[in-house]
């Protein structure tokens, strides 16, 4: 059982002062094995904070990130899964599922994690699974009118990944979960 935290689009301090306190109290150091971050932190203080939750931090560049050295895309393997990471402002039209599917084929990954729309989504298509953890601070978005703070926790166990999404709605944290299974250990999708 490997726990992977996926979050992004915090936009601190441009659009939000900090993560919601209820989220901060849940993100305790030592419980999570990897963090994948879709970008737009935007400042070093947030980077350092994420590192305290888990030292294995993978991050890609959002268009407002202060640090220009983050890569545009990243791929990594966790257990039986290949994961791809990209902020998403590079994929046009923004939020378009078919365009994202193209990126997934290009990166050749089972799970593609992207952001930019500040809208949680998790869906399965021919090429695999696309997950958008939304905005962890509920930051303003020109794309999405109604943003709730959200993040995703993935529990990777063998060929199965359970995606838990945590959303802060009207002051309460609501959890939902979605199951995905991959057919075999081959690198391509089911």
């Amino acid at each position: 059982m490997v726990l992977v935290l996926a979050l992004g689009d915090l936009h601190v301090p441009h659009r939000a002062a900090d993560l919601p306190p209820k989220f901060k109290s849940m993100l305790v150091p030592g419980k999570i094995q990897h963090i994948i971050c879709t970008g737009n932190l935007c400042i070093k203080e947030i980077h350092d904070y994420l590192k305290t939750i888990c030292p294995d931090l993978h991050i890609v560049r959002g268009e407002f990130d202060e640090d220009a050295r983050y890569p545009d895309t990243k791929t990594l393997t966790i257990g039986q899964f290949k994961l791809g990471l990209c902020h998403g402002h590079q994929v046009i039209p923004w939020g378009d599922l078919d365009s994202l599917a193209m990126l997934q084929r290009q990166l050749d990954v089972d799970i593609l994690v992207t952001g930019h729309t500040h809208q949680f989504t998790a869906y399965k298509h021919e090429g695999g699974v696309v997950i958008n953890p939304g905005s962890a601070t509920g930051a303003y978005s020109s794309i999405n009118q109604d943003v709730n703070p959200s993040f995703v926790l993935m529990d990777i166990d063998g060929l199965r990944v359970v995606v838990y999404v945590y959303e802060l709605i009207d002051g309460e944290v609501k959890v939902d979960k979605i199951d995905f299974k991959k057919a075999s250990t081959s690198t391509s999708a089911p």
Partner: protein
Amino acid sequence: MIADDDEKWLAAATAAVKQNAFYMQRAIDSNNLKDALKFSAQMLGELRTSKLSPHKYYELYIRASDELRSLEMFFRDETALGCSIAELYELVQHAGNILPRLYLLCTIGSVYIKSKDVTAKDILKDLVEMCRAVQHPLRGLFLRSYLAQVTRDKLPSIGSEVEGDTETHMDALEFVLQNFTEMNKLWVRMQHQGPTREKEKREKERNELRDLVGKNLHILGQLEGVDLVVYRDTVLPRILEQVVNCKDELAQCYLMDCIIQVFPDDFHLQTLDVLLGACPQLQPSVDIKTVLSGLMERLSNYAASSVEALPNFLQVDAFSKLNHAIGKVVEAQVDLPASASVTLYLFLLKFTLHVHSDRLDYVDQVLGSCVSQLSATGKLCDDKASKQIVAFLSAPLEKFNDVVTILKLTNYPRVMEYLDNDTNKAMAIIIIQSILKNDTRIATADEVDAMFELIKGLIKDFDGLADNDEIDEEDFQEEQNSVARLVHFLYNDDPEEMSKIIFRIRKHILTGGPKRLPLTIPPLVFSALKLVRRMRGGDENPFGDDTSTPQKILQLLTETVEVLSDVSASELALRLYLQCAQAANDCELETVAYEFFTKAYLLYEEEISDSKAQVTALRLIIGTLQRMRVFNVENRDILTHKATGYSAKLLKKPDQCRAVYECAHLYWAEEGENLKDGERVVLCLKRAQKIADAVQKMANASRGASSTGSVSLYVELLNKYLYFLEKGNPQVTGETIQSLAELIRSETKKAESGAGTFITSTLRYMEFQRQQEDGGMSEKYQKIKMEWFE
């Protein structure tokens, strides 16, 4: 060595005491009164020594007084056997020396206090008078100490079994007061014994003995019958009289503190005038602030622990008395350093916060008093004082946990003026952190102004400080990020008020200078965009003033983001223009949106020269433009045409190719039929393909075996064709796709390695779509002949 001698003498004296005590005990055991007295007198004779230091004398004294206990018991038994006090007194007179005689008289006298022969009053009076015969400070102190000790459990006090009426109480009171007065006089006299160069040593020795004097106050505190009236009318005035008149710094300091600690808090509250009135009469060298702070602390704790007592504070007007007293002290002691006077005000402030937390006017008064005090000194350079002021300013912050309350204190910013620049900024950060921690909302434009007044050290450069090269880069960033975070707490649900707030924030932030603006403008912009969105959702207010419309806010934003391009933050400015354009789009404000795009394009053309930056900027332009619905055909065409132009002129060919094929999306929008221009889409894709061909040629020419990079471009194009095929673009034919696929295959064959997984996954996807059962998709895919892929 003197110390060794001291030890030697003590050893000798102790031995003598022991020996005499032994004989005394033997005499007691054989009921020999005469001998008991003889040996006890001899024993006590050792206490006549002048050779010992106070510390050593104390040890000897303890020894001797211990032994006297058995003598005391013996006397009690003797009286039981019928010997009268007069007789015992008579016998004792035969002791040769005064000191031993007095010790014995005290011992006997204390035993007779309970007897019916003589009244307690007379005995006590006699004893306290008789002790005057010993005027040597050290010996006299210990003698009187013994007197106090031996009579203690015979006075009517808490814990003793002695009862009495009011008269007895007053007699006991008088006795203790007198003993105290005499002991203090002796103690003070010690200061003046011996040469001046040994002053420090004497003070140290006196300090060791101070509890002997203080004990009397403890006893007073325990006496029955010392209620508030007696305390106020007799006890306190008498004690204070001695304290003031002795004119001794050490004694005054210690005894004032003793009074405060020993007697109950509500006594102090009711006699506050008297107590405070004594303070200016004390020696100038006395550390008044410790005394006053001790008093205020006790009273604060009293208020905190018993709510019923709170009205009393108001009734005696404790606050103004203390405020006044401090004022007098500060006035009188001209040399008082700034840190000391601030400390005094700090304690008064804490007192006020504890006792009168609902009286903001009191709190403001204290702040004001501090300001008047500081105005004499000007801006502080003293670290210690600065620390105290920070503590002073933090106290109300921590008490109220609500910066909005702090904003009501008119003197608060005035105090901050006296901090040096660095401490001022540090204090501003503390205030901001209080807001962040407590989630405080600052909800009116005026409060926003007051807030920025408090943190002005962060907002702009201090006068006269032109360059900031001494400031650490990281620290500066953190400071400005704090200000940025603050902006999100300046908020009101009402769009009109929020509008005003936005204008005010802007006014303050724009004074910040080129280093601050790129960090502080973005949060303002987004706060304003959120307002625009809310305005859009609400009803039009026909009576609202000009500032509360989306147009006005967006206009303000144009002027604000402009500033960023003046300070070389062009990439940021471009992104912000695009964000504003989207907001204008959502408000159906076509001209405004077009204006934003124009500004963004100009920045792109004139300011963004770095290739990587261009690629990203262009991607954002295309992405934003693709979502715009507010433009008419003409405007849309102009903007799209420009974007495609920029795409074709990017420096690196692969970047060109990608940007151009992304432009295809500009000609296809899902929502309306008139936004779908199939031909133009294909034109874009074909144009992109030409660029990809050029890339391929260069690669083939330079290396022989082609790199996989350019084949990847073809595969990307293939995917794009598939995208538009699926969306139903009639111009995307099976043949187009086939020929592209053919091209990919032949290029891949040339290369040693394939384009790898991208092709494989694309093919797999195509096959998957072909097999789709819903007909529509597979129909489209049937058009493509896929035989050549093995």
